[in-house]
């Protein structure tokens, strides 16, 4: 299949996933899908490594439970062969206090037989942790006031 088709498949996957349709997103994944996001799993335990649809469903259900609204933009997308890389800017609204988190994800997708077989994500994890915990971690490290942000 062409890179153009894979590009469309990833864009459709992102549209379905960020609409909150977990089963729709899973339908676009291979049974043995592999997911890896480099993240401090002691702080963000739902991230890290996952394999298979059941594990993905569990992770995405956790995400959906925490955020009432998810929006996204894809400023850059590069496709070659069976691989697609997307720079994704996401906006998550927290259910707990309605605050909106905004962060960027580099998503690397490998497709097999028209389905997503592997997802690797690189995230500015320091910023993500600060927004999730609402703490100014830089201030803690530099000896400033460790106030909430």
């Amino acid at each position, binding site marked *: 299949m062409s890179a153009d088709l894979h590009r469309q498949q990833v864009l459709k996957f992102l549209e379905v996933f960020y609409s909150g349709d977990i089963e729709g997103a899973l339908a676009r994944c291979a049974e043995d899908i592999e997911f890896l996001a480099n993240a401090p799993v002691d702080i963000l335990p739902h991230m890290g490594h996952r394999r298979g649809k059941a594990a993905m469903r569990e992770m995405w259900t956790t995400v959906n439970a925490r955020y009432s609204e998810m929006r996204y933009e894809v400023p*850059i997308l590069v496709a070659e062969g069976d691989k697609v890389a997307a720079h994704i800017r996401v906006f998550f609204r927290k259910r707990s206090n309605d605050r909106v988190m905004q962060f960027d994800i*580099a998503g690397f997708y490998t497709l097999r037989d028209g389905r997503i077989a592997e997802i*690797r994500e690189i995230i*500015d994890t320091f910023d993500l942790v600060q927004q999730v915990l609402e703490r100014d971690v830089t201030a803690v490290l530099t000896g400033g006031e460790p106030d909430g942000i």
Partner: protein
Amino acid sequence: MTEHSLWRFSRAFHRAINERQFADLEALLDEDVDWAIYGPIDLFPFFGSRRGKAAVIEVIRQIADNVRVRRFDRESIMLGTDSASSMMRYSLTALDSNKPISLRIAHFAQFKAGRLTNFRVLVDSFDLVEQTVGYPIHLPRMAV
């Protein structure tokens, strides 16, 4: 077959960092290049956004003042017509402490007429900060 712009940029970029030779890189940057490395700018002043060739050369000088590249491996790469993306593992040396730093990054590059017009770098920054301060950062676990 013409060589993809990414390879020329990559060679020039690493030469600039390790040998402080900036001329090759300067020739490959668009005058209005849009550049961003996502990460904590309070801890790493060479992170953040820059606009224009002069500002980008200056920030690469700052990076060269701080680190040397020992090794890099591309774990994934995609080449488009005028764009490219890689996921990479870098082994760096921090020049002030001589400490090794292992860093995972992703980049997205866009080119026009062989020159870099847009460059976005995402860094697994929490891991980088822990390596830089030299101890694990203990924070509350997020409720699941």
